[in-house]
């Protein structure tokens, strides 16, 4: 088992999906053990692949390995499909397989007793298979197929409780919103293919580095230089914007919290939503070759997302929504890192984010499971009832805030450092401000959920820590949240068999050795502590200062509660523009296409037939006369033509 056989990793959950789909009904316990067994085996098989990569990673020119098969062949043109591992894929693979395993184990407790228990694990297996394929695809077509596959699973699982109207609506919203970006992604893939003639990612890189896209033009637009490549990578990035919930397509992610909480943890925190980051990191050589504007756009949208999501997180009251905003916040930071040119920082953040965000979601899930409440006004004071949950949630929140030495600190520091190094000081300051706001809303979330007096005593009467099958994944994730960040150190990396720290394993072009910028670290820690202190001041006890602040800044508060009116604006566009256009098209379809063209031509036939049928008298002499007349007519015609 090595890089050649890496296809087995996604194949196992795919097989589990097939088994569950066909025989799930007849299996005991809805077949959850099949799903968990498959993903567990995938996680175990991840290690041989990792060791195989580590064996060769030191060799000069290592660019990943894998295996591909011929898929379609038309004459000279062939499409190959295959699976491929390199350093970036290994990092992503680690996050996906481990978090998927833990979340599925957790789900055994969380989903127990649900009427669609078996279907839940069927969807989860399909998701795991699609996600692992996405990670390992060596080919843009396969990547796109898996990309749509995870989107579809996300749709199924957000709408898992589709009997609830809001869940069905959220599923639809998520699917349609991400589709908008996906169209861009497909256009980008086709643009890359049009010039290179191949979908293979490595071959496209070689083609691009050989200057293949220079001076290419799209349909007479008069593009020259790197403009073609820039358009193509921006189209690719549109896909990432949709999938990773970046402004302006971020609106689906908070609504996606309608799904079961483990789904939010797996799909909408740790894996699927970071697929956009992963894709951009994977295609980074193209982004680097394109004009600078491409990475500027990535940075700008990332920063906008960071700011709006962090501020919206201050006003949201649903605990899952607050965590969803923090996910948007983190995703924005990853794009800021990518836009500033550091694959290392983005992938490091992605790696640790998978653990601490899944931890936050799963522990929020435990809270919801225990109290059946998820609105901050109904919670509070749970720390005494659920000490373990509170402790791990606190760790996750501190990691998200970026408190030393938790994993989030190292990743966030790396991102800030990158911005400091490669971008101007304004962006750096904006990023630092976001650190403060993050600390503010995360401490609000923790304080309002776990500390002080319970606001809804009856609901919390019997609240207690969840059963071991749910708590064990929480503890594993908490441990990873604490120690996960240490991979940045060369010492730790070497001890684990890596060539060095994280930066010397995952990098673009040149290894980034670990260096610790004290100024950035001190500044961010200071801001984070200030944020926590401010959070404590505002939201402790009865949260009186926060209420006063809300009243004083009523318009701002209203705006945050209404999510900057972005959703309303989209709704307006849909109601006024899309539906108006739709009604025009519908009118055209009904009146012109249906009534005039289709029914009209049929009606013409009916009408003519009705008129003509009276020519048929049934009388023999009439027919005889017609025959004779016809013959004479033909004869006359023939003579006239001859003359």
């Amino acid at each position: 088992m090595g890089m050649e056989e890496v296809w087995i990793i996604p194949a196992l959950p795919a097989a589990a999906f097939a088994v569950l789909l066909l025989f799930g009904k007849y299996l005991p316990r809805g077949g959850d053990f099949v799903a968990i067994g498959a993903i567990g085996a995938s996680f175990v098989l991840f290690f041989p692949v990792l060791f195989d990569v580590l064996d060769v990673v030191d060799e000069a020119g290592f660019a990943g390995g894998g295996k591909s098969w011929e898929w379609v062949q038309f004459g000279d043109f062939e499409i190959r499909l295959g699976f491929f591992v390199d350093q970036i894929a290994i990092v992503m693979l680690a996050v996906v397989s481990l978090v998927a395993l833990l979340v599925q184990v957790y789900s055994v407790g969380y989903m127990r007793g649900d009427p669609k228990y078996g279907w839940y694990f069927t969807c989860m297996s399909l998701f795991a298979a699609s996600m692992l394929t996405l990670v390992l695809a060596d080919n843009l077509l396969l990547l796109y197929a898996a990309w749509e596959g995870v989107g579809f699973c996300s749709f199924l699982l957000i709408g898992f409780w589709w009997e609830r109207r809001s869940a069905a609506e959220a599923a639809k919203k998520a699917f349609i919103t991400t589709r908008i970006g996906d169209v861009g992604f497909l256009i980008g893939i086709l643009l890359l293919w049009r010039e290179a003639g191949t979908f293979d990612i490595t071959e496209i890189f070689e083609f691009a580095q050989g200057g293949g896209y220079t001076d290419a033009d799209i349909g007479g637009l008069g593009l020259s230089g790197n403009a073609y490549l820039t358009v193509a990578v921006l189209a690719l990035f549109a896909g990432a914007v949709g999938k990773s919930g970046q402004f302006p397509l971020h609106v689906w992610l908070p609504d996606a919290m309608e799904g079961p909480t483990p789904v939010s943890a797996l799909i909408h925190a740790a894996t699927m939503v970071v697929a956009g980051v992963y894709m951009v990191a994977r295609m980074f050589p193209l982004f680097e070759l394109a004009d600078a504007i491409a990475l500027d756009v990535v940075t700008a949208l990332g920063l906008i997302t960071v700011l709006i999501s962090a501020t919206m997180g201050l006003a949201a009251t649903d605990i899952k929504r607050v965590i969803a905003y923090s996910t948007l916040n983190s995703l924005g930071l990853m794009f800021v890192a990518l836009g500033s040119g550091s694959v290392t920082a983005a992938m490091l953040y992605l790696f640790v984010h998978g653990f601490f965000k899944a931890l936050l979601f799963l522990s929020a899930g435990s809270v919801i499971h225990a109290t059946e409440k998820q609105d901050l006004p109904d919670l509070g004071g749970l720390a005494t009832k659920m000490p373990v949950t509170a402790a791990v949630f606190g760790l996750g929140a501190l990691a998200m805030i970026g408190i030393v030495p938790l994993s989030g600190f190292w990743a966030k520091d790396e991102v800030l450092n990158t911005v400091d190094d490669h971008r101007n000081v304004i962006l750096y300051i904006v990023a630092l401000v976001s650190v403060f706001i993050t600390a503010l809303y995360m401490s609000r979330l923790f304080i309002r959920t776990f500390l002080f007096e319970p606001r809804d005593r009856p609901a919390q009467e019997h609240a207690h820590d969840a059963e071991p099958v749910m708590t064990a994944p929480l503890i594993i994730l908490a441990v990873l949240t604490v120690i996960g960040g240490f991979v940045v150190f060369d010492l730790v990396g070497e001890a684990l068999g890596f060539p060095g720290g994280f930066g010397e394993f995952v990098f673009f072009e040149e290894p980034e050795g670990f260096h610790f910028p004290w100024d950035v670290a001190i500044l961010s820690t200071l801001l984070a502590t200030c944020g926590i202190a401010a959070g404590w001041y505002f939201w402790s006890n009865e949260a009186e200062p926060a209420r006063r602040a809300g009243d004083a800044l009523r318009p701002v508060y209203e705006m945050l509660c209404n999510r900057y009116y972005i959703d309303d604006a989209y709704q307006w566009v849909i109601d006024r523009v899309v539906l108006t256009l739709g009604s025009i098209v519908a009118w055209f379809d009904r009146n012109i296409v249906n009534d005039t063209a289709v029914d009209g031509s049929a009606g013409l036939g009916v009408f003519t037939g009705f008129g003509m049928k009276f020519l048929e008298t049934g009388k023999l002499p009439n027919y005889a006369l017609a025959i004779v007349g016809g013959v004479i007519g033909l004869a006359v015609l023939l003579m006239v033509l001859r003359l």
Partner: protein
Amino acid sequence: MIPINNFLVLSSILFSLGIYGVLARRSAVLILMSVELMLQAVSINFIAFAVYLSPEAFTGVIFAVFVITIAAAEVGLALAIILRLYRNKATANVDEADTLKW
């Protein structure tokens, strides 16, 4: 030798009489007889051309024999139909047999 034109004129007259009979008569039997006239006009043409064009090869004559044979068969069939018609409608007037229409 009689010029071929005479034969052709004769056959034309016969054929026209046949057409007239088919068109003008209402009795199915008379229409059938008119059809026979038309067939015989064709036979005359065959034989006349055969004699004038290739007297030693009997093609035209053979065709005439064929026409007669087929005409006999046709008459048999047609008379059977007319009989059935008469049984059903109590008349052989073709104007009465007009049910095969819209």
